């Protein structure tokens, strides 16, 4: 059995607003295994995006702990400062959002090169070459010098995935990455994710409101009102592969 790459211990999150306190997550405990494609499924407002933001360190938790074990390091990410988390995320965790979040003024290749530039993991020429490889992986090499506005939504999402892979992180987290895409394009994105898991051994955590996608994950967790309710492990080709 694979080891746990991310562990959440008693994670709770409460937001204070003018209208009063709002509990977004209550005592969430979970393990994410290396190399799995975990789906977190829930309705709008269930707390799935909050949970994802706890995992990627974008948001601060109210209590509990998130431990990430990657590259022989055990890191409790919420003990780090915002700045340290940004640096850590740049190297260890790729993030993909529904709204792509590409910088509109940079070309596709520059958008992908940006994380490498910020982390100084690669020399400029190497980063360019790697960005081109990632674009080839996403079958977008001919659009390398276009601005995001000049390609389709599905293509933009593939660029966002390429950017998330720029520093070759072991973990990818994706918040509704297919939410604004048509079903054919969404299917293509899933193929990319499956390829990343099977061929590159990445761990992917994805949240979605679409229960119809459960069968595409190697494991899925259902969340409602900030609590994890159930777990399912469908009989998919991903799990077949893992059994082998």
């Amino acid at each position, binding site marked *: 059995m694979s080891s746990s790459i991310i562990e959440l211990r008693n994670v709770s999150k409460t937001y*204070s*607003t*003018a209208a009063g306190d709002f509990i977004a997550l209550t005592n969430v405990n979970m393990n994410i295994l290396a190399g799995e494609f975990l789906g977190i499924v829930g309705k709008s407002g269930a707390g799935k995006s909050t949970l994802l*933001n706890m995992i990627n360190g*974008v*948001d601060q938790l109210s209590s509990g702990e998130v431990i990430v074990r990657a590259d022989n390091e055990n890191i409790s990410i919420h003990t780090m400062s*915002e*700045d340290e988390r*940004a*640096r850590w*995320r*740049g*190297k260890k965790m790729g*993030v993909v*959002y529904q709204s792509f*979040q*590409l*910088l509109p*003024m*940079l070309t596709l290749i*520059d*958008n992908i*090169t*940006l*994380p490498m*530039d*910020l*982390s100084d993991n690669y020399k*400029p020429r190497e980063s360019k070459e790697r960005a081109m490889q990632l674009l080839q992986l996403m079958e977008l090499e001919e659009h390398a010098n276009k601005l995001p506005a000049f390609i389709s939504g599905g293509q933009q999402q593939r660029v966002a995935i390429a*950017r*998330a892979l*720029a*520093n070759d992180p072991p973990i990818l987290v994706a918040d509704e990455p297919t939410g604004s895409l048509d079903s054919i394009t969404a299917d293509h994105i899933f193929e990319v994710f499956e390829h990343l898991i099977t061929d590159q051994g990445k761990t992917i955590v994805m949240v979605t409101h679409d229960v119809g996608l459960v069968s595409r994950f190697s494991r899925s967790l259902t969340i409602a009102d900030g609590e994890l309710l159930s777990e399912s492990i469908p009989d998919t080709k991903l799990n077949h592969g893992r059994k082998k």
Partner: protein
Amino acid sequence: MRPRWRKVLHDLIDNKARTLLVVLSIAVGVFSIGVISGAYQIISNDMSVSYAANHPANVELRMANYNTDVLTSIHNAQGIGEAEGRRVNNFRVRAQGSDQWVALDVVALESFSKNQVNLLAPVSGAVEAGKDEILLEKDALKKLNAAVGENLTLELSDGTLKELKLVGIVQDVSTGAGDFLAPPFAYVVMKTLPTLRQPELFNRAYVTVAEGQDDIANIREVGTALKDRLDKNGTAVSRTRFSETHKHPLADTVNAILGILLALGILIVFLSSSLIANTLSALLSQHLRHIGVIKLVGGRNKQVFAMYLTLIMAFGVLALLIAVPLGGQGAYGLALFIANKLRFNLLGYRIVPMALMIQVAVGLLVPLVAGLAPVISGSRITVLRALSGDLAGDENKPQAGQPDRLPWFDYMLVRVTRILAMRGIHIPRPFIISLRNTFRRRGRLMLTLFTLTMGGAIFIAVFNVRVTLHDYIGAIGSYFRADVTVDFDKTYRLSEIQNFGLQVDGVERVEAWQFIGTELLYPDGAVADNLNMLAPPANSKLVNPIIVAGRWIRADDVRKFAVSEAILNFFPDLKPGDPIHLKIKGRTEVWEVVGIFKFVGREGILAYTPFEYSSQVLNLTNRSSSYRFVTTQHDRATQDLMAERLDHFFRGAGFKVRQAESGLASLDTASESLDTLVVFLLIMAILTAIVGAMGLTGTMGMNVLERTREIGIMRAIGADDRAVMRTVIAEGFVIGAMSFGLAIILSIPFTYLLSTIVSLAVFETPIDVVFTYMGYAIWFGLILVLSVVASILPARNAARLTIREVLAYE
């Protein structure tokens, strides 16, 4: 180029309007400070160099006629370097083919080639005038339309006309350098004097001291000793003037004026920095999502900080590229203008290193300082907040932990609207939206209001200062309110002049005035300064003094006088009733001060004693060489006409007229000089207004951009283009109106401050401030136009957005 720097480059060039706004905001400040600091450097250097290069006299003596023997004795006196005798007479001069007479001081030199003091620099034509030839100082050409080779007609005191050939134009930066009101000069050789029916004798001595030419105490000491010696030897000295070789007599005044302009320049930099802070803070809030993305993919605070700092530096560099060359040209232009006005030369166009350094420092540091706070807070923002899309930054939005109630402004708005509605007055809803929008970004509103208010307050204050200065000049004119002054070469009986004068159409009254040239003495007998004592009839209506202490002169005053405030420079504790030692006609006398009045300090010490007593002092009962005429009308044209008429009449009747001048002539010259100063102040005020307008445009643009979603909602529920534009323009109008209210208040201390500084620099005395509606009215009109104009472009942009575009924003 690395992607992060490519992003910075795109941020710089993609939004050209925003870049232009920031760059121009910085450039305005850099330009202003460059012009002023450059001009300051050029003038303070060139003014003294140019002045010293002409070997100016350290001591100028106005004397009774004297010959070469006296000149030799002056030359041989202790401590004297060079000494040159000249004769100066005032003549009316006319160019060939013109009927316009111009009063010139004609200076006769012994020899042009042996000229050692107050050197003449050639401009065109000959540098020496032979017998019956004349040279003109180049300033005279402003009044006299003459060309080299033509003949000039001079009117002698007996009415005879003589022609001299104009052979050259020269420049004399030394003679009369300290006197704004000095008449233009012309130069002849002594041999020409018989032609002008003048004796070949000197009446001026221009002297340099042998040592310590920049030590005013030494110059005074040597000059006073020389004067005493001349007095003892029977050559009366009526007036002395001391000046240092390397200090132009007007250097202090010019530096004070430049100091005021520099203060305004610094203020413009300050105002533009608030505009920069506003724009950069808006830029950062527009870039929150970008910052969020950068941090999401691994960007650290210092990397984000470095990116935006580079962007700011790029704005600064672009501003420098615009403002440095323009500032350099402006500095030289300003220096040249002042140099022409004050008759000194510049050493040529050049880049002033100090001004350049100041500009570079201002251009880079000011945006850096102004942008530091928004950049730091922007670079520290959390990824979550940056990506959450909370871009409007509504400061009225309730925050966690705040009490559950409306912000005060909204509460007031609701109350007022309800009260008005109960009385049947319904404020249009879009206007209420405009009002609320105005107060949503309070920090931005404050900075915009601050910039506009300062611009407005300075603008209004400059108009008040202008009126204050003119009012003071008018008040100064009330010391000599005659419509025409006629000076004769000899004394005439008052009754005689009255009999003749009243025959001239338009003359109402004639007064005889006398003049006593005296010296103010310290108790130990040392000369403190010259004192010009005028003696009108005690009941003269032509003097309307501004009394500071004591009283005005009376007919029965004996050895009593009223004196101008300038005397306090020598006797700070002087008060009415105190005795003062004066040297009159070579005798030391003790007079009593009866009153102290306000007057322009720069014009020396002025005093008044009654004609009734001066007649005894001068032994000229009911006689004088100077007469004041009051005419039926008092405008400049009538005065000029009457001066001409009286001149003709008296010359025709055989009187030896020296000069007939209208009362407003010299006042107008003084007013023109002041207007030049006011124009500079106004230029600075307009620059502050431009910065204010740019601030408002920027603010409105940012407000519209940040409320794109709201505008979309308004349009979705039926607001047409006009309604959207009206909402935006009304917001600009509200800001403009608020700034006007604040500017009215702030203009009051500004007026007092500016008036005091200017009057101390120009008049050497603080003056009473006068307010005028003019500045308020113009600024009110201007701010209305500016507010609307500044809002139109953002409003048009808002109205052009489609619902789909605006709701898809972000």
